[in-house]
């Protein structure tokens, strides 16, 4: 049972994000954000409601909304473009998501579990979806027609006249150095920490992968240094 104090902490984390002040100025309850929100059409979700809860500092209902509601948002930012107060409900939802992850909400873990495959690809390679993931068995509801020329994926990708795209396990070929730079960014900005909180197993897999790549890169640097000395 979460205590009120714990919920207060969660709200304070949201409020102390430096973007909060810019993205929430007050609310006229005009409803223009919900009017144009794609998620409001489909889910029991309303950006106006989220803003109202935050603005009136309704600690308990904010905590509640962070369980499921905030994951309905499609992050299209139409709300921010229309709000006469220049609030950004979509931006506020992004903050709330980060805070939910930071606090290791079980609901966040549940929501993100199916996203894990994509996360692995992203964190390790920097690309979201690689060609070898767009196969009928991964996305059966996209239909059987997602590839109108049959054949070996490697060959089909080599038939794309851009060198960088001639890969199958990444969207484009990423230099080793580039990947290693990205790992440094993930580390230094706390993203790997977030990942650890969300999915320990996935995190372990990723950590191993990153270590491997770093070793590879160190070897590459040594080889280059040797070549230069020679």
């Amino acid at each position, binding site marked *: 049972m979460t205590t009120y104090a714990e919920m207060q902490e969660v709200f304070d984390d949201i409020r102390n994000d*430096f*973007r909060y002040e810019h993205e929430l100025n007050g609310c006229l309850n005009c409803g223009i954000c919900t009017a*144009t929100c*794609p*998620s409001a*059409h*489909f*889910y029991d979700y309303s950006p106006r409601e989220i803003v109202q809860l935050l603005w009136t500092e309704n600690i308990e209902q904010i905590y509640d909304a962070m369980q499921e509601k905030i*994951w*309905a948002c*499609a992050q*299209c*930012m139409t709300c*921010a*473009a229309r709000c006469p107060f220049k609030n950004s409900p979509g931006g506020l939802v992004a903050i709330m*998501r*980060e805070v*939910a992850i930071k606090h290791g909400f079980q609901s966040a873990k549940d*929501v*993100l579990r*199916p*996203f894990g495959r994509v*996360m692995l690809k*992203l964190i390790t390679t*920097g*690309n*979201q*979806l690689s*060609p070898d*993931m*767009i196969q009928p068995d991964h996305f059966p*509801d*996209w*239909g*059987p027609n*997602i590839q*109108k*020329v049959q*054949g070996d994926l490697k*060959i089909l990708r*080599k*038939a*794309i*006249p*851009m*060198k*960088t*795209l*001639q890969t199958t396990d990444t*969207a*484009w070929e*990423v*230099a080793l150095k*580039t990947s290693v*730079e990205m790992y440094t*960014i993930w580390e*230094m*900005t*706390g*993203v790997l920490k977030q990942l650890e909180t969300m999915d320990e197993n996935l995190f372990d897999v990723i950590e191993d992968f990153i270590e491997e790549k770093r070793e590879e890169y160190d070897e590459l640097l040594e080889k280059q240094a040797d070549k230069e000395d020679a």
Partner: protein
Amino acid sequence: MSETSGGIAGHGAFFQPTNLSAQEAEKATAWVKKRVDRRELDLGERMDDVREHMWQLEKEGEIIVHRITDAHKPVMVKTLFGWDKKIPTLQLWHHKSCGQCGNIPGYPTSLLWTMNQLGMQPGRDYLDETDQTSCTAWNYHGSGIGNVESLAAVFLRNFHQAYVSGKRLGHQPGHFYPLVHCGTSFGNYKEVRKYLVENATLRERVTKILGKLGRLVDGKLVIPEEVLHYSEWVHVMRKRIASELQKIDVSHLRATVHMACHYSKMVHEDAIYDPEVLGGNRAAVGTSMAEALGAQVIDYSTWYDCCGFGFRHIISEREFTRSFTIDRKIKVAQEEAKADVMLGIDTGCITTMDKNQWIGRAHEQQYTMPIMADIQFAALACGADPFKIVQLQWHASPCEDVVEKMGLSWGESKKRFEDYLKEVKAGRIEYLYNPELAVSA
């Protein structure tokens, strides 16, 4: 200003034709235009242009601005509030899109092919290399994993690479200017640039990270003068593309245009509005290219609607995405607009609309609509091969229909491509640019 007939600007109680000649009409309404000119809102200090703060920061020695110079042959356009935006047309660094390169390879290929056709030289006038990370915004918006710092660090890392990329080819720093392919990257970078310019703490923290990566210039962050989306390049080049390259008449085709949310609604003051396109009432990109090619661009009731991509939803909550896109976009384009093709300007939108049609059958919603990017459509109209260049074989929607309507034979193109595949197997691969250019580090 004579008011002898009452009302303003000749509007009586009824709207009657004035029967004025074009010149007379121009004279009569000139005073209206003076004040009512598109986007001439006198906003004074009440609207903030982040670029002013950016220049100020550079003056104070805090950052370096990657400038658009005459060498980039920039064209001026206007944005939502009538502010100026510089669009470089030459010497571009391709900031690729995960979704495009992974699922819609014909998207960037069509763009580079068009650049080649216009006489741009790879290695001098544009560069595509491996030293680029994803912007990581798709993941951020979908999962919340990530934060402003990581987004900012990635932004600056990539744009630093763009800044120095010309060195290995003997060019000056800043030679290649970054051209962002994806709408989400574009929106994300616009936002992140704002945070960086306005928040000193963020700059401090990110400087440490970039320092560790060796990606500072004189110890400072490099921030681009403008954040540029590929569709903006297409917009300013559209007349040249149509007049110099177009080979196929598309005036019989009805096209609907889907405007990407992250292009036009995220940091919406930075999007192109052009009085020649849709009266300047809606964002110009996408529509402008279709119109320049002579296609009929059809208005429809859900023009402003999101496609339903959702970032996370398209992967792990797909009923939302497909219900939304079929109901609000595909069905409308087919039934209401009776379009032959729906054009988009962003990766996610095109993926969403293209991949979520077949499933409609399961819900007795059988609607189909060929989906492709504005630049893919343009490339087709300029004679690009539907398979080898436009790579339409990766599109689940019935693009073969619109290809046939353009007078091309899908079957023949397919056969040619299958023959080409044999060549590829044997190692005889065709390239848009010398493959050695792609490898940097």
